[in-house]
């Protein structure tokens, strides 16, 4: 895979990379850091990818790992007040209540919700991405839905 093809494929899934990273991380700057590291490591280790059809899944796997690395680093470092406020304030284009409800969920629920309901990955694919049993993914997805429902209900924005 040459550099042009690689870049083309990365840009094709740019939006998806952002959303997945955003599902794990709570601000755009951390998402950018994780994506940059994932693109860098993907380029370095692209020779390890045996089948190009799985490029997107392979890159998302790298991205999820990098997002968790960012989470570990940020857990050790103190978070400035400005960042907390920024995280708490969604952009105008976003559905603010939904964003807040989603952010209130644990990271493991957010990720399966985004992967399944936003990115459209089937449960089997999600299980492969997260290296989890499919049953566990299914259970976690159910619990995530329930948690999101409760969160939205508490905000009284739930539309039945």
């Amino acid at each position: 895979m040459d550099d042009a093809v690689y870049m083309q494929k990365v840009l094709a899934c740019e939006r998806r990379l952002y959303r997945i990273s955003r599902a794990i991380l709570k601000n755009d700057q951390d998402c950018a850091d994780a994506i940059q590291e994932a693109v860098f490591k993907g380029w370095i280790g692209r020779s390890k990818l045996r089948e190009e059809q799985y490029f997107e899944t392979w890159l998302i796997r790298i991205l999820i790992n990098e997002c968790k690395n960012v989470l570990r680093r940020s857990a050790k470092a103190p978070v400035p007040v400005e960042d907390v406020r920024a995280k708490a304030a969604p952009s105008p284009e976003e559905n603010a209540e939904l964003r807040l409800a989603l952010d209130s969920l644990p990271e493991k629920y957010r990720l399966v919700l985004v992967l399944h309901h936003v990115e459209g990955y089937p449960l089997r694919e999600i299980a492969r991405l997260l290296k989890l049993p499919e049953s566990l993914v299914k259970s976690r997805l159910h619990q995530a839905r329930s948690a999101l429902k409760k969160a939205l209900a508490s905000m009284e924005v739930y539309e039945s």
Partner: protein
Amino acid sequence: MKNVHLNRAFGPTPPCIRTAIERGFERGERRMRTRYRLRTARLAAAAMLVVCVLAFTAIRALRPTPDRVQYAQGTTPQPLTAVNFTSDEKGIIETPFISADDVATVRTLPSEEETQTIVLVQPEVAVAGASATGEEFTEMPETAAEVMPDTESADVTYASKEPAAGAEEVDISDTNEQIAEVIPTAEPLPQPSEPTNVQISAALPTAEPLSVDEASAGTLLFSVEEMIFNDDYGFLLLRCSFDSGDWMQVSSELPADAAFVFSSGVSIAEISPALEKMLAHSFGSNNGLRFAQTAVPEVLLPDGTRPLAMRIIEGENGAQEMMLAYNPDPKHNIPEYVNINLYLNGFLVNDAGECLAAYSEPIPLEPTDSGAFSATGEPATDAHGAYAQSIPVEVPVTRVRGGEAAKSGISHYWISGFGDWLLFHMKQDYSSSDEELQKTLEGSFILTLADGTEMTLPITCMNVAREDDSEFWQVSALLSADECRTGDPAICRVTTMDGEFSLSEMLETEAPLSLALEMARLTEIGGESIPLPTPEPMPVSEQTETASDRPTAEFSTSAEADGPTAEFETGN
């Protein structure tokens, strides 16, 4: 959940994501380029290492095996009086250099581990054989390479030959002990402390300690530990016990009664019978050698290095010979020797008139208590009084009429006699180049004798000498009294303030001489004279002073400057 559109939770992709993607890609590219460069460098280094290893292996393969080299330079072989090879015996000629026809070293086969070293010292024992390649030879090869041109261990089968008269037969397959029994008188030569000159064959019998002449004053007992005869150059090298590692060199061209003068101690001894016999064998009749002592001067070779060793040999007619050992190959510490046949005041000149060395101060040759340098302790009885004349006689010159030489800055003239030679010295500032000085002085040394005969003395030596932190050209011309003796005695006479003397008389005179020399060439050229301090008379006893202490002469313009000659007068 149906009615919840989770993708509403995400706004548009922020621009920082695109930037992050681009930066990640750029970082990856940089990392890959770095890796490529590192990999290329590693490959190049590995390739170079492989090439080096191959080259080293090839060089080692081309070199002789260490055993052979070590043997060639190291172990002193067993001397034998005779060896007769029987048929079907095999050996390898190990000696890489065989300078004498009768010396060879043979390593026996077939056992590779049991090597046998045998040296043949009898020329009567001829060897014939054939190499393993079928190449036959009937004479002892000069080098092993002739037998084994391209092989390292080719077997050599020696044909049987009749032993020399009185020679005992030795089976070369015997052990060293057996050989020692066959030749009980042959003792292994001691291993020299210094690396052996591999080009010299060591096969001479060990000499007994030299006998001592009890009647001689200052007799020193010493023994010759090792003798090496270099047939190629006609040298005999003796390593004596009185000075460990010191070598004495004997020239095959020496006269029969040559005396040896060397530096260590008062050593007057006679040659041992063994050495005498060996010398007689090497040089013909040679009835005894005499040893005397002298101090060793500071001598520098023309290249500025110091010789390793120095020997002054006083010949029959009083001529001095000095032999310098210098080391042209410091890495292997293999000395070579230079014969210097004339030793004169401040110069060493060979037969060809080439100056081989120079030193700024005269070598003090002082007679021993016995009155001369004669090794026997008797007063010098040389026909020409050579021993008694071995003290340099320095003659200050008071006046000289300057010419081109004066213009060129010559500041000193002095004349000294030594042995049968009369030496004219000139000194000049070092500012002049060699060519300029040579051109200026060419023909300047003209000696006008009493009968009007002019003798042009060729410049024999030009050297830069140091004195009092200054550098000078020392220029000399030599006049041999021998030339005069063969012709009309009148031409050998020069006018001095004290009358006329022959060169021999002049050299025998113990008082400072006042020479009246006519340097016609300078006079013809004319020019200004150079004033010099008035010289002081120089007693013989003070003639070993340094050159800086040497009385100098004063040049003054003579009233007879337009004349064809000018007189030199001493300050007296």
